[in-house]
């Protein structure tokens, strides 16, 4: 139909000639389809399974009749309608509706889910609003499905509780423990990134392999996407950017099958922006950010809009456009969303400080770094705290205050190590080593480089490894600062890590 109007017109003309005055089969009669659908409904209510997933034209009529029956039943019998609607949703979803030019399958799925949610007192808009607000805690609305526990309780954020919940889930396979475990994934992404990545991978694998669907309607796909998002965040904190992007692709795949793809795909686009920033794909970030920000504003996705704005400003900063980045960050900080978005707001302050520092406004930058450090909760956001320590180190180093710089770098490296973020720890140790050499402590510098080497090798940063070894040899031979070489190594590592 969409390939050529002229061809279509001649085709339709031929069709009309051939069918003129003749009978054209139109599939199952309305009444017959309705009767079949009613029998199916009764079967489902009495515990029967779906009979067939074939999609001949008669079956399609039965599916339409079934959805119509569900919509009509919703007002009379809301309790049974969710069961029937969910069974119909899964049956329609599993059918191979090839060459679906008029998006009939998507239309029927949407009507099933709407009817089911309506029976529970929700509209599709309610569901979208809930998913819009997804952040640290409950991945889905417990009210939508009686299977789920209400996961609004706070978690300890150390990863111990996550471990406990996941082990319980592995033992009993119950949805309540799974629900709680998924909610917990988000609360300790920063503090226990390795654990989060491990368990998110296991849960994701289970969701894909499990023959049994979880939740009702599109909740299984939604949950699969949410878990992939948690894995992506964790991989990013571990410096595994390619893996992080892979998880975002999995989240995108799952979210595109939900009834609320618009907001969910936009959220994943924001997440991708942050990973691309970490990968220093600045051109990509700057090209995509304006459209993403505009769409987030239109859909009132405040948190994601803030995230994208910070990413855009940080990309401007990293590409040396400090004058462009400064007013944007000043505006973000001025609007201050400390109560609603504390971690993102502190990130904005830190980035603003970096820009001011690059513009040689050291006093103002220091004030921002100090303010951010005092507000950052080391237990909840170790990555942010370590980042701030690193920035303070850089600020002091730039002004030749090596002793202070060394203290901050050391603190940053230790926080990264404790959080299991070894790539970032290794990177920070190289910066620390540089500061130590500049402070005439070559032996300490060598120790730091040597301690970073295993991670550089494990993460396959071979060139950096070779350069670091060469530096070490040189340093040992002369026992003096090799400033230029170290600078070169630092820049090289910054680009790679």
């Amino acid at each position, binding site marked *: 139909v969409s390939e050529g109007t002229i061809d279509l017109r001649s085709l339709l003309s031929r069709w009309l000639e051939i069918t003129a005055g003749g009978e054209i089969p*139109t599939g199952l009669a309305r009444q017959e389809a309705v009767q079949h659908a009613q029998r199916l409904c009764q079967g489902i209510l009495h515990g029967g399974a779906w009979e067939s997933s074939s999609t001949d034209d008669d079956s399609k009529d039965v599916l339409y009749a079934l959805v119509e029956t569900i919509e009509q039943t919703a007002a009379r019998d809301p309790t049974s309608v969710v069961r029937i609607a969910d069974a119909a949703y899964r049956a329609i979803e599993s059918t191979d509706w090839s060459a679906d030019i008029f998006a009939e399958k998507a239309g029927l799925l949407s009507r099933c889910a709407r009817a089911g949610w309506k029976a529970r007192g929700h509209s599709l808009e309610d569901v979208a609003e809930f998913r819009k607000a997804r952040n640290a805690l409950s991945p889905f609305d417990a009210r939508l499905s009686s299977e789920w526990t209400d996961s609004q309780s706070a978690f300890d954020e150390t990863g111990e509780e996550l471990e406990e919940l996941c082990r319980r889930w592995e033992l009993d396979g119950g949805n309540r423990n799974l629900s709680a475990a998924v909610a917990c994934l988000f609360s300790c992404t920063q503090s226990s990134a390795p654990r989060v990545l491990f368990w998110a991978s296991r849960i994701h694998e289970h969701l894909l392999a499990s023959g049994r669907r979880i939740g009702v309607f599109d909740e299984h796909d939604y949950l699969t996407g949410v878990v992939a998002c948690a894995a992506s965040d964790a991989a990013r904190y571990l410096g595994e950017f390619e893996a992080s992007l892979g998880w975002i692709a999995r989240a995108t795949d799952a979210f595109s099958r939900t009834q609320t793809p618009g907001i969910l795909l936009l959220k994943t686009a924001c997440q991708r922006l942050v990973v691309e920033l970490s990968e220093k794909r600045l051109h990509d970030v700057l090209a995509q950010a304006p459209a993403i920000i505009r769409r987030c504003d239109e859909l009132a996705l405040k948190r994601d809009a803030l995230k994208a704005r910070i990413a855009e400003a940080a990309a401007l900063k990293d590409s040396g456009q400090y004058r462009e980045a400064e007013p944007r960050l000043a505006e973000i900080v001025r609007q201050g969303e400390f109560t609603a978005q504390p971690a993102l707001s502190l990130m904005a302050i830190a980035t603003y400080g970096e820009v001011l520092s690059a513009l040689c406004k050291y006093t103002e930058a220091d004030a921002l770094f100090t303010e951010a450090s005092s507000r950052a909760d080391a237990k909840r956001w170790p990555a942010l705290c370590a980042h701030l320590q690193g920035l303070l180190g850089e600020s002091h180093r730039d002004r030749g205050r090596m002793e202070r710089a060394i203290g901050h770098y050391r603190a940053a490296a230790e926080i990264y190590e404790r959080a299991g973020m070894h790539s970032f720890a290794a990177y920070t140790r190289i910066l620390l080593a540089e500061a130590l050499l500049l402070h005439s402590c070559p032996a300490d510098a060598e120790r730091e480089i040597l301690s970073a080497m295993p991670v550089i090798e494990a993460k396959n940063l071979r060139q950096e490894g070779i350069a670091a070894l060469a530096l070490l040899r040189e340093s040992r031979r002369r026992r003096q600062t090799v400033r230029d070489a170290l600078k070169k190594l630092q820049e090289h590592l910054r680009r790679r890590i």
Partner: protein
Amino acid sequence: LDELYRRVFLPLVRRATWNHGLSKEDARDVVQEAFLLAVVKLDPGRNPKAWLVHVVDNLSINLARKASRHHRLEARWGLGWRDSSCSQSTAASVTDDEGEDG
């Protein structure tokens, strides 16, 4: 033509039947009428899929409205209110606002 039947004709018949409450026979007539209008009026600059859907929806709504009017009149005045010019008048009303979605 077999592809046209399966991919275009039948989905549009289902649309008219299940979205607008028509019988299969009325739905078939509506789609045939939409095809006829397409041969005459379909603008190459427009999206044919959206155009066809729009025309089928309008024809179906008009037919359902007309049927409902007949039922009311029959209930009040008895038999004899059948309008044999239903299709032509429906087609005429569609041409006024067809293809708004383009």
